[in-house]
Structure formats: C-alpha cells, structure tokens
C-alpha cells in the first residue's frame, strides 16, 4: 500500500469517525427496566415506572432548564406572570401537532389542564389547586389563579400538566375518563401525545416500545427534529443480577437501578459507562416524637436531646460505605436533597461526634439499656445493614436497638398510626420545588411531619406563607428558616442521598435520568 492510499484511507477514517461531521441518528435503544409501566397518562401516573415515562410521550407547556431548577419554554414559546401574581398568560408555538400530525390547539390545553386539576380523577390535582380557570384565544392561553402561586410555572413544567389530545379522548371507547385513558394506552399509537416519542407496543409486565415522533418540535444539533433515535425498546427485568447480566451479554444497552454493591465492578468494565446521576432521593428515618408510644408507655424519643444524640452517634460516612459502597453523600439539608430548589448547605449535618452524643444522653437522663425498636423492610439487604450498623453505633449510648421487620404497606400503615419508634424511609421529589418534600417531612397538617407527630407552630406558619410568597428571595429565606428549625428539632435520623445508578453501554450517549427520576431519551444516540 503506497503512502497516498494510506493518507486517503486515514482521511476517510477521520471523516467517518468524527462525530462533529454528522449527528448519529437512527437505531433502537434497548433498555432493561426494574419494573414495568402500567398506565402512562399524565394524570393517572402514580407509580415511578409510570411517572418517569410521561415526559417521553407527552409534552408540557413549559420545560425544566438543564440546571433542573429554572423553567424554560416548552409547547408555549413564551409565558408571562401578571404583576398581582394571579394570571399566567402563555403563547403556544405555531404549527404544533400531536405525533399523528393532528393540530395541538388551545382546546387541548384547556381539556388537559381541566382534567389534571380534577380531584375526582387525579391524585395530583392538589399540585395545581390554585388554578381557577383556563381559557384560550387562538394561540394565547390564560390561566386565572384563585390565589398567587409561586410554584405554578414549575407545575406547568411537571408531568401531571402535560398536554393530551382532546380528540383522542373524545373518540376513545369507555364510559369514564379512566376507562378511555386505559383504552388509549392499550391501543397505543401516535394520536394522543406530542412528546418526542409515542407508544408503539406494550405487553404488560414484559415489554414496551416507543417510536420516534417524526414531527417533534425540538431541533437536534443537526437542525433536524429530535429525537435522534428511531425508538426505545424496554424489557422488564425485575431481578438485579439478571438485568446486569443482560447488559453484559450485550442484549440491552442500558440497565437501570444497579445495586450499589455492583457499582465498582461495573465501573471497571471497559464496555460500560457506570452513570451515577444526581437525584433528589434521600434516605432517612422518621423518629416518633410523641410523648407516649402507641402502647401508652413513655417515649424516650420525645426528648429532643435523645434525638440529637442519635444523630451525632450515627457515622454517616460509615453507613454510606456499608450500604452504598461509597456511592452517596450525607444529607446536607435536613429537609431535602441538595439538588432541590431552595436547599441550604448545612453540612456537616450532625457530623459524627460520639462524645457530644454521650453528653446529650447523660443530660437527658436516659437510663442505660433503653430499648428502641427499629422497623425495617423485610427482605431489604440495605435495611438489614443499616440496622446492624446503628445497633453497634448506638450501643455506647446505652441504647438496646431491636429490629422489627415488616413489608412496605405495613410500614406505611405504622407510619400513619404512629406505632413505631424509628423506621427506615426514602423519598424522591415528584415536582421541582421544595414545597412537596417540606410539606411531607415537616408540615404537621400535611402528613403529621412524615408520621413523627412533630409539630412546630413557627415552622407551620413559615410553610404556609411560602405557599403564596411570590418574591423568590423571601421564599428562599422562609425555606432556609424551616431547614434550620427542622435540623435543631431532629424529628428524623438524617442519613444520606443516593444517586440513580444506571449502567450504560459505551455505544450509547446522551441518555439522562433527571434528579426527579424521569428517563430522558430525547437526545440519546446509539452507534452500532
């Protein structure tokens, strides 16, 4: 082979091999899921495997920015909030269509938002309870509010307010909205949503297929419509080990929810990218703060000093090492993950200090050998590890920690009835605002401060003020005050944040799982 031929071969290889010249397009991404979807509809999605897929099939009026905190234009190219905070006006992009090419109009927006705020239909209706009326005039949408609502723009970028086709629902068989929704989902097809994909195959519990919406309004880097992929093929593989084997055998391109014990091994696999996507997931343990336990006996955990002592005596770094094999970090805000809007960094939040813990216990006069029950999920290896670690960490305080194992629904029932001392729990935000998680963890009227029975009048009034505070700086300050009060009162054992661990073949790029958990395939590519 002469030099010229080598040179031209190299030049050709450079052209073919450089992605800057051509955007990878086409192909099907094979994705192994831990659990299957059951009904992907903006207002009925109530389980994560459903919620996290809504945005792929249905578009929202506004979108979350890349930073995960700001909102930017979606189906609406512009939006404006009135000075009194009681009216939002939005202008729809021109020429919007659903995936089947039928026009997306103001009537669809009214239909979708009316559906989403109907409490008889959707359990998410409360998130947009401030909406009084939605009207449309051509491309102009007007949303009138009953009260000023600082979260309304964020909610218009949230899955439950995504736009569905009124015509598709009118035409669907079924007596009720839910029956119609189920019929539309069962049938699949491009008529109901305007997202980057439409549902083109579904076998309950086994597989699901997304096909590209060729008329999607967002443009890719090459100036042509997104998505880059032709579609996504999902397989439901509930067993962790099998899901990873399937990826290693090359039968799928992505395996989600990799157990943390396997992260290091997969990081070393040169064919894979072991992604640890930042999440809003926090792992914590509610502490029952009521003066007496459910059986009427006095509750040692009612004393704030005991709760603080437990927090000081808990070595978070050790827990993260044991349970997450290092793939996590201690909670830095007592009320939310660091990725949540308005979280403040209070780290180290109860940094490990056994002497301080012992002093607090002595001050509280807790008798040695005090028995405390730690309720865990039966069958959860993580919970078993947490219990074993805490039992040892708290033994120097004279605490005799005993375990009680229950299943998920039982733990939920105990949380509500207050029949527990301390139990494991976790949380992922569904919306991109602090109010949901703060209401859940601390606002007594919402959920009894995550079942702990903790009540603080200042905290509650700050929370209620933040619901209508339109000045972002003032609102941030209210959330900051709440975080400080909550940290001091320690109604929780503050533990750690975990990322979403997803193993992705190196042939894939651009796949993202957002901090809220949503699976985003819009800009994903696969090169085979």
């Amino acid at each position, binding site marked *: 082979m002469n030099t010229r031929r080598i040179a031209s071969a190299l030049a050709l290889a450079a052209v073919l091999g450089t992605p800057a010249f051509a955007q990878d397009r086409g192909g099907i991404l094979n994705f192994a899921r831990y659990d299957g979807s059951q009904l992907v509809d903006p207002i009925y999605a109530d389980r994560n495997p459903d919620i996290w897929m809504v945005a792929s099939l249905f578009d929202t009026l506004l979108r979350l920015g890349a930073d995960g905190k700001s909102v930017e234009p979606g189906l609406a190219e512009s939006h404006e909030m009135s000075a009194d905070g009681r009216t939002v006006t939005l202008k729809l992009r021109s020429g919007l269509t659903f995936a089947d090419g039928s026009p997306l109009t103001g009537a669809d927006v009214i239909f979708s938002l009316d559906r989403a705020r109907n409490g008889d239909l959707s*359990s998410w209706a409360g998130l947009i309870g401030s909406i009084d009326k939605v009207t449309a005039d051509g491309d102009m949408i007007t949303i009138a509010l009953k009260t000023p609502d600082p979260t309304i723009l964020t909610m218009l970028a949230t899955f439950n307010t995504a736009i569905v086709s009124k015509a598709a629902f009118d035409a669907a068989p079924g007596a009720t909205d839910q029956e119609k929704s*189920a019929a539309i989902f069962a049938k699949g097809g491009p008529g109901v949503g305007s997202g980057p994909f439409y549902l083109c195959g579904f076998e309950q519990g*086994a597989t699901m297929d997304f096909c590209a919406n060729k008329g999607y309004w967002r443009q890719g880097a090459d100036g042509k419509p997104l998505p880059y992929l032709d579609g996504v093929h999902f397989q439901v593989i509930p067993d962790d080990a099998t899901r990873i*084997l399937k990826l290693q055998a090359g039968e799928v391109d992505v395996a989600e929810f990799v157990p943390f014990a396997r992260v290091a091994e997969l990081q070393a696999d040169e064919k894979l990218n072991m992604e640890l996507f930042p999440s809003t997931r926090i792992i914590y343990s509610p502490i029952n703060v009521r003066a007496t336990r459910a059986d009427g006996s006095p509750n040692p955990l009612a004393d704030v000093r005991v709760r603080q002592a437990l927090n000081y005596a808990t070595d978070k770094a050790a827990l993260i090492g044991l349970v997450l094999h290092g793939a996590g970090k201690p909670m830095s805000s007592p009320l939310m993950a660091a990725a949540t809007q308005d979280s403040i960094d209070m780290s180290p939040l109860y940094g490990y200090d056994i002497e301080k813990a012992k002093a607090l216990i002595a001050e509280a006069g807790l008798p040695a050998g005090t028995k405390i029950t730690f309720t865990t999920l039966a069958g959860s290896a993580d919970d078993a590890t947490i219990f074993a670690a805490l039992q040892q960490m708290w033994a120097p305080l004279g605490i005799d920690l005993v375990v009680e194992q*229950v299943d998920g*629904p039982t733990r939920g029932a105990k949380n509500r009835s207050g029949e527990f001392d301390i139990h494991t729990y976790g949380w992922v935000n569904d919306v991109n605002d602090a109010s949901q998680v703060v209401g859940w963890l601390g606002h007594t009227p919402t959920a009894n401060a995550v079942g702990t029975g903790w009540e603080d009048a200042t905290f509650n009034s700050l929370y209620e003020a933040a619901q209508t505070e339109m000045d972002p700086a003032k609102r941030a300050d209210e959330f900051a005050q709440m975080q400080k009060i909550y940290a001091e009162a320690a109604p929780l054992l503050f533990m750690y944040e975990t990322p979403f661990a997803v193993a992705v073949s190196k042939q894939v790029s651009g796949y993202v799982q957002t901090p809220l958990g949503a699976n985003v395939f819009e800009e994903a590519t696969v090169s085979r």
Partner: protein
Amino acid sequence: MKSLAYILKRLLLMVPTFAIVMVIIFLLVRMLPGDPAIAIAGDKASDADLAAIRERLGLTEPLLVQFWLFLTNTLQGDLGRSIMLKAPTLGVILDRLPTTAFLTLYAVTLSLLIAGPLAFVAALNRGRWPDAAIRAVFQVGLSMPVFYIGLILLTFLAARARLFPVGGIGHGFVENLHQLFLPAMTIALYTSAIVMRNLRAAIIEVLDADYVQFARAKGLSSRLILGRHVLRNALISTVTLLGLSIGNLMSGTLVTETVFAVPGVGRLMLEAIFARDYPLIQGLTLTFAILVSAVFLLTDLVQSWLDPRMRLT
C-alpha cells in the same frame, strides 16, 4: 361408562373443595397486614385519598358483604379489576397463563427426558459406580435453591457462552423452546432429581417382583420385559409424584419467572402480593387451585389407565 361416572364423581367432589378454597382465599388476603390503600396510592397519599380508595374498593363494607360479592361475582366469571394493573383480573390472568403453562410443561418434559434414561441406567447398575455417580449429581441439584441454579445457568450458558438469551420471552413455539430453555431447565433440574430417585426405586422394586422374575424365566427378551412390565409399572408411582408436585412446580415458577424475567402468572403473583392487589391475588389463587385440582384429576385418570386395579375405587 364406568370411567365417565368416575370422572363425574370426582368433579362433584370438587365443589366442596372449591367452597373451602374460596373462603380461605378471601380470609387469607384480608389477614395480610398492611393497608391495600397505601399499597395502591403510595406513602405520599393524603388520608382523604386513602379513605376514597377504601370506599371505591368496597373495603369499608362488612366482611360478610365483601365475601358475598366476591362469591357471586366469581361464580359469574367476574374476578374484579386488578388494582395495580387497572384492568380486569380475568383478562390479565388469561394473558399470562399460557406462558406459565408452557414453562411448566416444558420443565416437566425436560425433567422426564433427563430423569427417565438416567433412572434406568442407575437401577440396572444398582450399587455400581454409574448408580453412585448419577445419584451424587442429582443430590447436588436437589440441595441447591432454585434461584441459585438459575443464576448459575444464566451466568455461564447465557452471559458467558451466549448459547441462550438472558431472560425474557420470545414469540411463537419454536422461539420459546430456545428462549425459555434456561428457566425450564432450572425447574427441571430440581424436579428431575426427585423424579429420578423415585423412578429408580420403583424400577428396582419392579425388577425384583415375582412377575418379572417369572417373565425372565419364561425367556422373554429384556427389551420386552423392560418396556411392557417394568416401565409401565414403575411409571405409576412417578405419575403420582409428578401430579402431586404440580404445587411445587407452580411455586417454582414464582422464583424462576422473576429471575428469568418471564412474564407469567408466577411473577404476577409475587407482584400482586407486594402491591396488596386483593382481586388479583384472589383470582390467581383461584386459578392455581383450579389448575392443581385439574392436574390431580388428570393424574388419577392416567393412573387408572396405567393400573387397572384402581379403576373401580
């Protein structure tokens, strides 16, 4: 005519069986700790949401009323709507049942193919090394948990050697013979160990029986003796054993279908229990009960065909 009467009698006997099964299913599901409303709506749901769900599911009705509704609806073929799948229970079960039926039959076939010849080899070489070797290998199969066998097969035959796909299900009979080979094999390895031991013992017993000694003395060929006398008589107890292990096979699918990502009724049962999906658990348990009863009936019929002495009892 007599066998028809026998079948009718057996079918009539099933009525009280099912009456008891229905009561047990109904009560067991409601004795599970944990609130189905929380299982449905999740931990984040408000108390009002939970109350509405309980109302909608009829859980606020007295237990007797709930049972009456369950009974009358079931007799009309209405198993209610699955809570977690938001679809009619019967349809969901019928969708998933063929997969599990295929897997179970495949596993039974494989275990007979494995156990049959080896049992003969072991029995005919009683006490010598082939017998010891075969029994030792099956002892290992019997001692290992089903999910562990499954993971070993997956790791070596699927992920490493790439001979089979790692989990999932294919389309059509032929594709699924390949696709479901590993899960069927996982169940078969366990079942064949039991069948092999039983069949070996039965063959040995028959070989020692007077009529076989007599047949030998008459000068019949070994092939004829083994085929006509030994196999047929040894099979009687094996058929009983397989029939009785249908329950085991079914529970084997719970684990196997999860490990191998096979969307059958076994995995569905696990999911339904975790979700406290009362209608689905009830429907599935009833389905299992019907299947087990049907298999028992079939076992009896096959037995009476193999062994004429049992026809009149």
